[in-house]
């Protein structure tokens, strides 16, 4: 009798408490990250001498990290900043903004506000000029528009420079929509900040003009406890989804933990698992360029360390499941799901010395525990 009684109580305790207690056992940040700074080690010294060499602000050459932060299974195990950047600095994310835009869209997707196979024009009417382009095409950077993504080395015809600073700055999505197509939608990958800003404009049509201005906060930043975010807009009021999101390194790491845990934040499935899976699926028609073996593979507005089409992994020393948000001048948010590592790097790299692979190799050597099968 007492056995059955105990069993029933145990079963009850199990059915209610067990899912909760799993979440209980996991570490999550509150206002602050739980912190267990890793002890000094040779591997950590090697990482620091790679990421933080003596800095030359005259030549601006070499690896120039502004911030490096490592989260292991929800616990802050390492963080370092280079002055004047501090833990409080809302740093420019550059193109990491694109992946965070995708995570913002993921919340809207979970609320059934749009479909990946719906025409972009359903949510952003000026895209009626390109009726075949679907939301999913934009997320794969496969709109087929004749876009030129070059920064400082080819400024005359660069679409992105014109969009951000001259002809497109009043309305970046409209500027993009005015481009002609030179490929079928979905046929080829061409990295385009214009595609991302059309997504940012489509978000307005998905969530409504009233909710739009606060949507990244209400949908994503506030549930994650992100307080430092600034997202600049163009003169039409559209978020510059391609480039102009700012937040401090600790806040960016919260997005990393959300992605590492498949879109779940504590007890809430904030992003549908299927959405994160889409983010992490290589674009089917992507063909790696033989001359650029280190280029990460495009997924759904996130970057993947996947071996596709017979090419090697872009970052050979990191696991194949590694995925990242990446931005101009060395910005990176890397997620190693099996190792439960989230890495934030803010930087001001003005040359090509920095190598993602090298950083990931050194971080793993310093912080990865043996992965449980």
């Amino acid at each position, binding site marked *: 009798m007492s056995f059955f009684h105990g069993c029933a109580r145990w079963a009850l305790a199990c059915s209610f408490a067990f899912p909760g207690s799993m979440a209980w056992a996991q570490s999550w940040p509150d206002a602050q990250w739980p912190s267990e700074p890793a002890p000094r080690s040779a591997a950590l010294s090697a990482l620091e001498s790679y990421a933080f060499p003596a800095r030359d*602000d005259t030549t601006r050459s070499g690896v120039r990290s502004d911030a490096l932060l490592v989260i292991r299974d929800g616990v802050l195990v390492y963080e370092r900043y280079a002055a*004047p*950047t501090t833990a409080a*600095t*809302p*740093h*420019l994310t550059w193109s990491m903004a694109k992946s965070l835009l995708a995570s913002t869209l993921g919340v809207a997707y979970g609320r059934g506000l749009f479909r990946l196979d719906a025409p972009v024009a359903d949510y952003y009417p000026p895209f009626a000029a390109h009726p075949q382009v679907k939301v999913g095409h934009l997320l794969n950077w496969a709109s087929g528009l004749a876009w030129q993504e070059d920064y*400082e080395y080819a*400024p*005359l*015809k660069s679409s992105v*420079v*014109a969009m*951000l*600073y*001259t*002809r497109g*700055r*009043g309305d970046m999505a409209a500027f993009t929509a005015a481009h002609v197509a030179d490929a079928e939608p979905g046929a080829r990958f061409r990295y385009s900040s214009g595609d991302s800003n059309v997504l940012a404009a489509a978000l307005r049509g998905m969530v409504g003009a009233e909710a739009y201005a606060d949507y990244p*906060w209400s949908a994503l930043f506030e549930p994650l406890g992100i307080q430092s*975010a*600034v*997202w*600049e*807009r*163009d*003169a039409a009021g559209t978020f510059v989804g391609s480039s*102009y999101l*700012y937040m401090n390194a600790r806040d960016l790491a919260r997005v990393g933990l959300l992605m590492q845990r498949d879109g779940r934040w504590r007890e809430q499935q904030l992003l549908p698992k299927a959405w994160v899976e889409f983010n992490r699926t290589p674009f089917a028609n992507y063909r790696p360029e033989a001359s650029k073996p280190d280029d990460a593979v495009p997924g759904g507005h996130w970057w993947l360390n996947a071996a596709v089409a017979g090419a090697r992994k872009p970052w050979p020393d990191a696991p194949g499941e590694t995925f990242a948000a990446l931005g101009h001048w060395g910005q990176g948010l890397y997620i190693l799901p099996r190792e439960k590592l989230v890495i934030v790097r803010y930087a*001001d790299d003005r040359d090509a010395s920095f190598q993602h692979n090298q950083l990931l190799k050194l971080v793993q050597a310093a912080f990865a525990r043996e992965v449980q099968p």
Partner: protein
Amino acid sequence: MIRRRPLRILLVLGMLLLVAWAWQNRVHLQAFPGIIAAYSAKEYCSCRYVSQQPADYCLGYVEQYVPLSELFDDAAHKRVTARGLGSRQSAQWLGARQGCQLLPLAEPLP
């Protein structure tokens, strides 16, 4: 004629090609001088008023291979105006979540 003045003919041909190229690229060429001033005004404004970095750091941060003739930070209004390649551009800090934005019309320099 061609045999007598080969250099002049080449020069004229070259000029014609250049004019044709410039006409083809007129939209890009027209916008080009505005890039450096707009970039500097916008990125300085954000560096200073969004990232809240020190002024001297932000000056170094926006420095490019094309030199600026002037950069004026109207700190009282959080408005930054830059001049370079004959173009003047201003960026304005708008608020805590909005950060900075380029203005349609540049402010005059003091």
